[in-house]
């Protein structure tokens, strides 16, 4: 019984150690991100990247920008976004948004469509599908 208890305590301590280590890694990541943003004047927007069927969808939260000023570039395996970021109330420049992402699959750059709504940029790209279509008999 006491052996089982001590095993349980070892496991709990190990979980706590892993949790502390993860928290340290996360803190380190956030610190580096903020330091880089401050040094370079570039803001990394909050973003999500999804794969859905034969599409890749990227959304990025970029308040204080303007659709005409967003520079979006697409290659087969990267998306690059650059845009000014202004305080919407004071019209003061905060810096610029900069996001450069390696995509999880190759895309057709000419298929990329984007829209900017309520401060969120949405980019949809069609995946490059290799091979030929096979008829099912």
């Amino acid at each position, binding site marked *: 019984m006491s052996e089982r208890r001590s095993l349980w305590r070892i496991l709990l301590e190990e979980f706590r150690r892993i*949790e502390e280590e993860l928290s340290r890694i*996360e803190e380190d990541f*956030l610190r580096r991100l*903020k330091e880089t943003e401050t040094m370079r004047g570039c*803001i990394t927007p*909050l973003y*999500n990247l999804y794969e859905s069927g034969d599409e890749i969808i990227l*959304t990025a*939260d970029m*308040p*204080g920008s303007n659709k005409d000023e967003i520079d979006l570039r697409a290659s087969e395996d990267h998306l690059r976004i650059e845009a000014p*970021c202004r*305080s*919407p*109330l004071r019209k003061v420049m*905060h810096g610029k948004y900069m996001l450069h992402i390696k995509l999880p699959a190759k895309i057709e750059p000419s298929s990329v469509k984007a829209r900017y*709504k*309520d*401060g*969120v940029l*949405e980019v949809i790209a069609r995946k490059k599908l290799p091979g030929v279509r096979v008829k099912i008999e």
Partner: protein
Amino acid sequence: MERALDGVEIVELEPIEGEGLIFIEGFPDVGLVGAIATSFLVDRLGMKEVGYIDVEALPPIISIRDGSVKELIRIYRKDRLIAIVSDLPLPAAMVKSFSQRLMDWIQSKRPELFISLTGIPEPNRLNIDKPKVFILGSSKEVVERALEHEGAEPFKDGFIAGVKGMLLRESVRRGVNMLVILAQAHFNYPDPGSAAEVVKFLSRILDIDLDVKPLLESAEELKLRLRDLMRRTSHVMQGIQKSKELELPPVYL
């Protein structure tokens, strides 16, 4: 002052007493909807800081506003309304014990109602101009009373993860009247538009006049300023399986 062995201390700077108190909490989670809505309420009603919650597991940080030192989790009051506002998300490991401790304190005040404000993740949020508002209650009576007001529908099936879920569970177990107001929201982008819908419904429930225009006008500015809190909250949400809220509970029949 309320002390406990679980590292949660609730401090009343002035006695929080009275009949028919209504508590409102907006701990940061999905789209920071609850946090934005509660802070807006505190600001617009000119609520007074009357206490704070000290949590051992939170990092040793203080908040400075206009040169004044602020606690991370603050309690505000105006008349019967008590609002709890937090500048940091709660660490996943202490959500359960914190919820029990907070509910011990709230229950001891014999409140008329405890209201939790939050967002429900909506992957299609970008295509929604007016987010829907849902309500959940600790009892049928609480939900029916809330539904007498226009602008919300009952939340039928799903999961609620994190502090809101645990508080609701505790309120059901203890028979405390609790209402959760949820609006469709971006999962991990600050969503003032969603918070505005929550505030609109809340103002009907509380029968107070709250104009959300200032909130909507400063929406983009708020999104910019809340980016870091959202990033930290997203990490915590991963730890409490918040994405579970995108799923439906299993049905076997």
